[in-house]
């Protein structure tokens, strides 16, 4: 109930009820009392006029009038109007109408106002001079019809006032509805907006000035908020992106740092290793020279020499990874023929059953590169891809093209600057790698193959070659789906910067 009172229609109805409760009783009282007074006054006037008519009649009677005639006159007085009592007192004797109840004969009490004596009869007495002796005419008129009329008037008044009240309430209800319904609509839309549907417009079709002004203000506020909201969202997204980029760059820097220190370590080991290998190689050659060719010792020494050659190869791979190999020959050339040559080599190395797909764009910009190293890189990546293919199903694809590195992409890779790059891609549909493996693939001697199958240096060498070319290598891989290596090499001849 209290809840209904705190609504606009509730308040309006309550206000109207209070106003009417205060105003209607006095109004009712004033109207009904005015009507009552008027009715009573006119009753008394009528009664007195009637009475005067009969006084005149009695005044005109002859002195020798019979009692019969008097009674006839009194009877006619009874029959006129609402007569209920008619008698005449002549010389101490009272003669009454024959139409009057016997009991009524002694009831006369003179009234000086309407409703006196509570007998519902208005009694009056008037002197009559026409008779032989002084006489007083006594008449009584029924008051009850006036009472009944008054009740009817009051009832009518109540009906009229009630109808008025009801009509007022109906109109008030209707008026409040024209205020409330646009307000409710505003509320509905506001709720929709606050729960995320910010594009709803606040524009109710109300002609009420206050409501349309409120709606306009709210709509302006909404537009501002929507703008602020959009800007905030944008800002948050930008920040998140910047944070993600920063983290990625940090991780990359960390990764590069790690690989670089590994390179330093491995390079140092290789250096010492080469110092040991050097006299071994020479001693072997001297020893072999001293022995006859068919000596069984020579046979074993040849084997040792072969092993030394392998050791030299390993040490050279490590040095390539750590970018401390002796200066390769750098030229500025189109990569297409170099890649074609590598592909021919790779076809020869891989089993014929392997599906090797080639897509080399012959019109790429020239790149400053060491051709042997680029070929080595392709061979190593294809070898890696082949090892990822189980039972030679699936395919390996090698592609060469040119790309424009955007600022956005460059901002996420510490080794890339915005500009033109040649992009080498080696993709396989093999077993793929999980992120933990991807993290470590470029580390020397990190291998997922069983011991004895591969040295774990192939991808380290690839990494060293890419670094040497001032390029960037990225890996995309999904376990079970395959792997793609993207190698970006700068077109503007910035390759081979000593870092």
């Amino acid at each position, binding site marked *: 109930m209290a809840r209904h009172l705190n609504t606009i229609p509730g308040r309006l109805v309550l206000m109207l009820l209070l106003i009417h409760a205060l105003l209607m009783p006095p109004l009712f009282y004033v109207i009904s009392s005015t009507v009552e007074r008027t009715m009573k006054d006119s009753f008394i006037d009528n009664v007195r006029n009637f009475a005067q008519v009969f006084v005149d009649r009695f005044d005109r009677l002859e002195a020798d009038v019979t009692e019969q005639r008097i009674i006839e006159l009194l009877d006619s007085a009874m029959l006129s109007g609402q007569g209920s009592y008619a008698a005449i007192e002549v010389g101490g004797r009272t003669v009454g109408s024959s139409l009057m109840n016997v009991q009524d004969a002694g009831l006369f009490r003179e009234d000086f106002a309407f409703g006196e004596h509570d007998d519902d009869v208005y009694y009056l007495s008037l002197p009559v001079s026409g008779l032989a002796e002084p006489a007083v005419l006594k008449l009584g008129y029924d008051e009850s019809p006036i009472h009944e009329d008054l009740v009817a008037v009051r009832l009518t008044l109540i009906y009229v006032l009630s109808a008025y009240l009801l009509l007022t309430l109906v109109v008030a209800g209707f008026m409040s509805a024209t205020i409330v319904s646009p307000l409710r609509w505003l509320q509905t839309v506001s709720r929709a907006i606050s729960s995320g549907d910010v594009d709803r417009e606040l524009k109710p079709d109300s002609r009420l000035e206050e409501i349309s002004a409120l709606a306009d203000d709210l709509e302006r506020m909404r537009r501002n908020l929507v703008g602020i909201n959009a800007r905030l969202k944008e800002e948050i997204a930008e920040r998140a992106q910047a944070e993600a980029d920063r983290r990625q760059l940090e991780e990359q820097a960390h990764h590069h740092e790690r690989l*670089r220190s590994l390179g330093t370590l491995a*390079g140092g*080991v290789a250096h010492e290793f*080469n110092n040991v290998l*050097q006299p071994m190689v*020479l001693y072997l050659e001297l020893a072999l020279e001293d022995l006859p060719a068919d000596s069984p010792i020579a046979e074993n020494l040849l084997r040792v020499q072969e092993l*030394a050659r392998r050791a*030299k190869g390993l040490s050279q791979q490590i040095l390539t990874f750590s970018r*401390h190999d002796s*200066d390769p020959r750098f030229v500025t050339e189109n990569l297409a023929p170099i890649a074609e040559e590598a592909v021919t080599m790779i076809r020869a190395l891989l089993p014929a059953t392997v599906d090797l797909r080639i897509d080399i764009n012959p019109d790429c910009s020239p790149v400053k590169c060491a051709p042997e190293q680029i070929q080595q890189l392709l061979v190593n990546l294809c070898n890696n891809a082949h090892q990822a293919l189980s039972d030679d199903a699936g395919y390996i694809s090698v592609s060469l093209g040119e790309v424009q590195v955007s600022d956005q992409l460059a901002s996420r890779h510490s080794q890339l600057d915005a500009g033109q790059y040649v992009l080498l891609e080696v993709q396989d549909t093999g077993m793929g790698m999980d992120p933990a493996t991807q993290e470590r693939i470029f580390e020397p001697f990190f291998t997922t193959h069983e011991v004895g199958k591969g040295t774990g240096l192939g991808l380290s060498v690839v990494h060293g070659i890419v670094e040497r070319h001032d390029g960037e290598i990225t890996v995309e891989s999904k376990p079970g789906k395959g792997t793609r290596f993207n190698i970006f090499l700068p077109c503007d001849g910035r390759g081979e910067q000593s870092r």
Partner: protein
Amino acid sequence: MARILIIDDEEDVRIALKQVLERAGYEVSVAADGPEGLDLMKEEGADLVITDVIMPGIDGIAAAKKIRDMYRDTRIIVMSGGGMIAPAPYEPDAISTRSYLASASRAGADRTITKPFDRHELLQVVQKLLEES
């Protein structure tokens, strides 16, 4: 017969190189470090010096520079094991062989050669340099 001076702190490198070069018919003397090598140059002189790049005392580059300054006609070969070379091995700011060899060339070395090389490679380089002088 041409005289060759070998400077290397590794004894086995010295011995092996000496044997190989002597068999090829050269006169060979050896020194374990830069100062010793410079003393020998003063005493005996040499047509060709083969020096390791990094040694205690005076390193190969400094030695090459001194020899180049004092003996215009002597040919110099600087050897390197590749990889990182620094007084304290494996330091992150170690100097790379490439930059070392580059500075060797600037210091006056005629040739740089990367270990491990075989006899054939070495004799080819030595012969070529001596023919040129």
